[in-house]
């Protein structure tokens, strides 16, 4: 085991996510000092500050954290499931399905909850489609699942382009923001946070079985893992996580691919350590990215997906370069 004390990286990440959260609720168009923020969180402070922090910024920060955590854990699960380090929820077309659902709702003039619900339905439909097709005649292999996902994702991409080209220009910005990932409509973080915590608790006891599964399904079966039920469960969990994340924040790319890899490069590949670390690090990354997205060209906001890519790409490349 490369890490002598598995609690240490978890503690560091918890600390980092707390600091990021604090920064995120303190920074904004009207900056409050860290002391003021702490005072508000402790239950005092002026009424204006209370409204600003507790009702506007905190829900958004928590939503960002939940979205990042959901995507990173989903990515880590998909990578083990497919024994392919390139897999992530987006590659498998789940976000494509969600995007088509959301855009169709927007095209129909719906808003808010109905768009989210439509996105969730789209993601679950994409899940069933990919898994059903890959399962097909009964033999599904990771490569077959991956290939099915990639092709289905390309199909979704075409549908998205079709919808965009048929949409009146006035509605396009909202759609484009959704496609690039946008947290400004995320108001209730609780469903996302609850699902994140619940799935982490469900998956954690399977950590060692996932470590074995990463060595191939036959090897895992020979070591006492019930491979097929485990793979179904992991796929469903990853789909649920992705669907929840895209429902909250649209298609935030990159987190699901890069966060698990960054952590593997540093921490090794023990899923019992990687999965909770992914939840924390993915959340932290998205909180920081969303904070930047809010302030870089304030009062305008950037889509958070742009920032995750701009932070994630150089960090990932640096770690990859260093790890040789």
């Amino acid at each position, binding site marked *: 085991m490369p890490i002598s004390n598995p609690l240490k990286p978890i503690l560091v990440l918890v600390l980092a996510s707390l600091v990021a959260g604090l920064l995120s609720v303190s920074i904004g168009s009207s900056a409050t000092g860290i002391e003021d923020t702490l005072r508000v969180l402790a239950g005092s402070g002026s009424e204006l500050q209370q409204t600003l922090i507790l009702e506007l910024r905190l829900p958004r920060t928590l939503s960002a954290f939940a979205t990042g955590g959901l995507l990173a854990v989903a990515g880590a699960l998909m990578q083990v499931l497919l024994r392919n380090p390139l897999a992530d929820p987006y590659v498998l077309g789940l976000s494509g399905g969600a995007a088509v659902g959301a855009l169709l709702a927007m095209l129909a003039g719906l808003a808010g909850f109905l768009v989210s619900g439509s996105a969730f339905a789209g993601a679950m439909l994409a899940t069933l489609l990919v898994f059903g097709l890959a399962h097909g005649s009964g033999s599904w292999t990771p490569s077959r699942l991956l290939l099915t996902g990639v092709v289905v994702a390309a199909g979704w991409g075409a549908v998205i382009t079709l919808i965009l080209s048929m949409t009146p220009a006035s509605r396009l910005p909202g759609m484009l923001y959704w496609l690039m990932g946008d947290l400004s409509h995320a108001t209730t973080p609780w469903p996302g946070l609850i699902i994140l915590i619940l799935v982490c608790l469900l998956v954690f006891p399977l950590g060692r079985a996932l470590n074995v599964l990463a*060595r191939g399904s036959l090897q895992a079966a020979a*070591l*006492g893992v*019930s491979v097929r039920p485990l793979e179904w469960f992991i796929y469903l969990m990853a789909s649920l996580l992705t669907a929840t994340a895209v429902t909250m924040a649209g298609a935030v790319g990159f987190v699901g691919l890069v966060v698990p890899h960054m952590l593997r490069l540093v921490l090794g590949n023990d899923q019992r350590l990687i999965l909770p670390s992914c939840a924390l690090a993915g959340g932290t990354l998205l909180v920081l990215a969303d904070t930047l997205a809010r302030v870089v060209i304030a009062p305008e906001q950037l889509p958070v997906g742009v920032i995750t890519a701009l932070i994630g790409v150089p960090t990932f490349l640096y770690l990859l370069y260093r790890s040789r």
Partner: protein
Amino acid sequence: MTTLTTEELIIDIPGRTPGVPLNLSLQPGQVWGVLGPNGVGKTTLLHTLAGLREPRSGRLLLDGNPLMELRRKPVSQQMGLVFQDRQDGFPATALETALIGRHPWLSPWQMESGKDLAIAEQALETLDVIHLRDRLVNTLSGGERQRVAIATLMTQAPGIWLLDEPTNHLDLQHQTSVMKLLRNQAASGRAVFMCLHDLNLAARWCDQILLMFPDGQACWGPARDMLITTALEKLLANACFLPSWMASRFLCPASLHSDHLYWFSCSKRFSGGIQMVYYLMGEFLCVQSRRCRITSVSPSTTRPMGK
């Protein structure tokens, strides 16, 4: 210790007519060798015995219980398998690789303890790869990875050891030490069942032999009854048998300066019954046997048997 028996077992190779039903019994203390040409179904048989593939027909009994109805976890405590090819999609060190052998013995919430670590390290030590414990397995050589895989099985410590060509990629010295290890495991009450390609190894180290022929036929039994020229010539199309004086002339130069080269040892082993020495030379398998009297062969006209 564990016993695995097959009743009228026919392995399932899609598109192949069913072969002879196998009634094998892997008893504690036995070392089985499976011989047969490529594509005859040795690996499929091994996977079927491990319960990883449904057989076409017949039953598998693990200590009298139907194998396919047992849960995977108790099965994996009693039976383990070294695969011919391995997936390393994600980097892992040799020690981590060996340590996953403890998986069947731990409950889901349990972390590996110092005891588990010690078992894995002991296995790496035995397989002579302890110096590689912190190296990533995908940076190791083929032979080193093979030994790490066997160390994983040793960490798993099941009663039945199934191995798919365990000597693949191994140099002569490590072939011998792995075979010695397997014999020791059998001596301590385990059953070993392995696919091999090297007749010499089979003759030297196995006490039970299963021969699988390309036409779906098979025969099995004690090694001294199986490793006979009539069976071997059916197994290997290019077999060519030489008279003893000529074979010994071929063999002499190498056997003079090596007691670990196999024919010496195997001629010792079989000296009570049939004496066999064979030597692979290009396409030819040269067998010297007292029983097989080929007296009419002159030095210039060696002829294939069975014609």
